């Protein structure tokens, strides 16, 4: 396996790992907030918990994906929400999977409404959080690689400016009658 391929696989593995861990955090806190009586740890106001945890998780995800394009960070936010919804659905249907409860219409309707609610609540918050995190990470917490790339870009731009300035100076030094003549 060549080095570039290995780097690409590592990059995608990390993106998927961060999104899955984010989904675990968002999904678990969503369930803790909405099913407080079943939660081993009491949490506060459900709305505040969901708002804060989704934004915060998205934000950290964005910071962790500072090396990636902003589109990737936004996509990771969407993926995190989607995975969180899958985890919430798995929780809601866990009695059915365990063979305890038959999957009747009432149960499905209750579960579907909860899944819909979680989807509506989580998607925008995670995406906004990840985009903000990516932006802040890019501005204040760039990785050494990005810093090097930026420095190289600045150096190249500086060289271009200097080259342009030299050309301009040369043109100014030439007598006016020779300007514009092949």
């Amino acid at each position: 396996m060549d080095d570039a391929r290995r780097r690409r696989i590592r990059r995608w593995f990390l993106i998927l790992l961060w999104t899955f861990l984010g989904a675990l955090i968002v999904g678990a806190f969503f369930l803790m907030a909405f099913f407080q009586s079943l939660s081993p740890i009491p949490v506060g106001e459900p709305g505040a918990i969901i708002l804060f945890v989704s934004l915060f998780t998205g934000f950290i995800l964005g910071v962790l994906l500072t090396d990636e394009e902003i589109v990737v960070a936004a996509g990771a936010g969407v993926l995190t929400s989607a995975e969180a919804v899958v985890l919430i659905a798995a929780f809601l249907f866990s009695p059915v999977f365990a063979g305890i409860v038959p999957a009747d219409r009432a149960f499905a309707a209750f579960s579907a409404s909860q899944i819909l609610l979680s989807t509506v609540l989580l998607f925008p918050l995670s995406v906004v959080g990840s985009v903000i995190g990516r932006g802040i990470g890019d501005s204040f917490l760039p990785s050494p690689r990005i810093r090097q790339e930026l420095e190289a870009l600045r150096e190249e731009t500086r060289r271009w400016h200097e080259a342009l300035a030299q050309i301009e100076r040369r043109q100014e030094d030439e007598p006016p009658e020779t300007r514009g003549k092949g």
Partner: protein
Amino acid sequence: MHGIARVLAVAYLILAAFAAAVYVQITANYVNVAGVQEGLERGIGVSSVWLNWTGNASDRAIAVVNFSVHNVGNVAVLIVGIDYEFHMDNVYDPRDPYHLDKLEATRIAYISISMTRAEGIEVRAGESRTVSSTVFVVPGTPEGDERMSRFDRPDDLQRYHPYLSRARLFYTFAAFELPYAAVYIAPFYETEGVVPDG
């Protein structure tokens, strides 16, 4: 990765590990609660009814109804209430005991017992318990005499046939602050008849 981003990554990992543990626990709790809710309906019934009474219509009669509760689930439940209507069948009335008019004519009392969580009767996972309830029939007042006349309906063998309708049991969970739930108890009819003891 920037140094602060590395710290955030470690915090993120720790938070995710904590979230995973909570997720597993909350899912196990949900499955256990659902298991109790499904299993309790099959595990509840009236085990016996006996009469503590002399057989004399001028004496006070006590009927004791024993409910058996078998918790087939994996978490403890708290019995916090029982509702039922207590009837004494008049075997000379040919109508079905659960015929609406006959239910009206044979009703002795509507019993409703409710308890707080602290007073609730705990039935641990896999355990069986008997929950008793008493019905008093006290003659001496017009209402009491009317009840006693409905109560004192033996068959030819001097046996009584009490039965229950609209029986419900209310429960919650010892470990979880869930709202009270109700489970309907199958109708009970004492076919063989009870001889008063007292």
